[in-house]
């Protein structure tokens, strides 16, 4: 369990945050830039001291202002991967990796340099110096260094922010691998929905220094997407499991709370957990069951929520087992006589889903 209940005044921003979240799995700390994400994770690491409050990790009190407890950063057993790799320029990769190797606690992650190097693909870099590494290599060494310091929890502060798109995906796969191999809890700061969808189990959402929501990552992302409700459309995100992959037609069938989705995709193993997004602009509503139509994914649901936008567009949420948002025009709103509680058919094309499928760790 990670428990945080802290306040800190940083002049132009006041951090106020209280949550309690399972310490297994990956927890994303998300929000726009300047929302206080890095401040939060630095407080967990002990690099910043809150004005008041409590920080607990698995019954260990890192910080408690009323009891005057403030464990020093080097005694908290957190492995921190920073946005910039922060490798020590005066040491070889091997010395960097082994810098924190000598500390250990009862709950420490146990790992060895050979195995870590093999998992991260950095065995051939051991004698080099950080200056001679590429951005992706640096971050992999930084992750290795954090793992080898025998941490009880990994903290990652936008570790992919300085990488190009191809390297980003590569590193996400490494993080997935590390997590499935070592099962170490991770706090992951990011503002990228793409990264969060692939990695996180839970999420903490910050806005202007204050905690807004926390809980299951899909729920949080769907809640926060409403924040952007304005002229631009937004996505509804779903979590599902691969039921079947038809290699002849490159089609995949995913089961989710609303039923089954069919869409084309590259091969994904059966049973894998995936997340996918459907844009509000791609969702079509119909009062009757549509016949002879090319759209593959049709669901029956009940209208749950209607939001009128200032430009006379309507965002309609339909409960099909899970909530899905559709954006319709005033004309459609009128003709279909959209009202809360009305039964309606929801459909979207396979193509609207295909691009967005993300395999979860």
């Amino acid at each position, binding site marked *: 369990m990670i428990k945080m209940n802290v306040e800190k005044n940083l002049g132009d921003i006041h951090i106020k945050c209280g949550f309690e979240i399972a310490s297994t799995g990956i927890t994303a700390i998300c929000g726009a830039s300047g929302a206080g994400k890095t401040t939060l994770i630095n407080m967990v*690491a*002990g*690099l910043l001291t809150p004005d008041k409050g409590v920080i607990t990790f698995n019954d260990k009190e890192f910080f408690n202002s009323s009891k005057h407890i403030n464990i*020093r*950063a*080097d*005694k*908290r*057993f*957190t*492995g*921190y991967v*920073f946005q*910039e790799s*922060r490798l*020590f*320029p*005066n040491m070889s990769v091997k010395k960097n990796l082994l*810098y*924190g190797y*000598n*500390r250990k606690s009862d709950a420490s992650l146990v790992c060895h340099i050979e195995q870590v190097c093999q998992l991260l693909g950095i065995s051939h870099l051991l004698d080099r*110096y950080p*200056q001679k590494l590429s951005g992706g290599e640096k971050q992999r060494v930084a992750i290795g*260094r*954090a793992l080898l*310091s*025998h941490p009880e929890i990994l*903290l990652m502060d936008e570790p992919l922010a300085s990488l190009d798109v191809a390297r980003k995906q590569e590193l996400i796969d490494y993080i997935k691998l590390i997590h499935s191999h070592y099962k170490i809890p991770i706090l992951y700061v990011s503002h990228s929905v793409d990264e969060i969808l692939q990695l996180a189990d839970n999420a903490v959402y910050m806005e202007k220094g204050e905690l807004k929501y926390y809980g299951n990552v899909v729920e949080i992302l769907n809640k926060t997407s409403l924040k952007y409700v304005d002229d631009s459309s937004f996505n509804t995100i779903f979590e599902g499991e691969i039921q079947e992959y038809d290699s002849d037609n490159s089609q995949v069938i995913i089961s989710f709370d609303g039923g089954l989705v069919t869409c084309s995709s590259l091969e994904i193993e059966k049973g894998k957990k995936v997340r996918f997004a459907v844009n509000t602009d791609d969702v079509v509503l119909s009062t009757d069951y549509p016949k002879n139509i090319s759209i593959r994914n049709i669901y029956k649901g009940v209208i749950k929520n209607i939001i009128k936008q200032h430009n006379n567009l309507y965002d309609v949420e339909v409960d099909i087992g899970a909530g899905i948002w559709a954006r319709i025009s005033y004309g459609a709103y009128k003709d279909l006589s959209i009202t809360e509680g009305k039964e309606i058919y929801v459909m979207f094309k396979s193509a609207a889903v295909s691009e967005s499928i993300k395999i979860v760790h």
Partner: protein
Amino acid sequence: MEIFSLSEAEISAIKLSMIVGFWSVFLSLPFGIFFGWLLARYDFIGKSILDGFLHLPLVVPPVVTGYLLLILFGRRNGVFGPWLYDTFGLSFAFNYKGAALASAVVAFPLMVRAIRLSIESIDQGLEQAAKTLGANPLKVFFTITLPLSLPGIISGIVLAFARSLGEFGATVTFVGNTYGQTQTLPLALSAVLQVPGSELYAARLAIISLIIAFASLIISEYFARRAKKYKLGGRI
């Protein structure tokens, strides 16, 4: 060829200059690193006063520095002088120890400045990273801060050494101008100039001083350049 061989007096002056320079740098280095680090890394009440105080010898006339040293460390009437002599048998009067102390005080601001700048230029993120990897403050200092500021420390050493070679005013005020004891190169030069008809000797001493000072500057420049390269991503 006689002109190229050094006289006994000249060799004595050069030797003494080197000894004084060595001791003044050697003994002030730990303090230089401490104050450089303190000023670079911490904000505290009275920081600017301390900073100003450490810089004083740079702007105060050296004679005044020498006079203050006399008041503080004079063996008979100084504030600490008699105590130092009674407890440790340490006396600065008319010997190279006094010359070294005077040089150290005068050169100290240069040393602190160089070290402070190089510690300031170290990314504090690296120190933070070391902390999260379990390094206590002492380990952080000796494995990260000190090695990364080494080029600056070396250039501080060279600067302070060069400054102590040129030290005149404070030394002559504090410990006088005694042959073989406190008569370093500049003091020897000044003594020679008092004697009519010794212009040639004076010129020789001046040239020797120039050569030593120039060599120090080249060494300092060399390390400064290495330090820059280091920061851009090369290694020492």
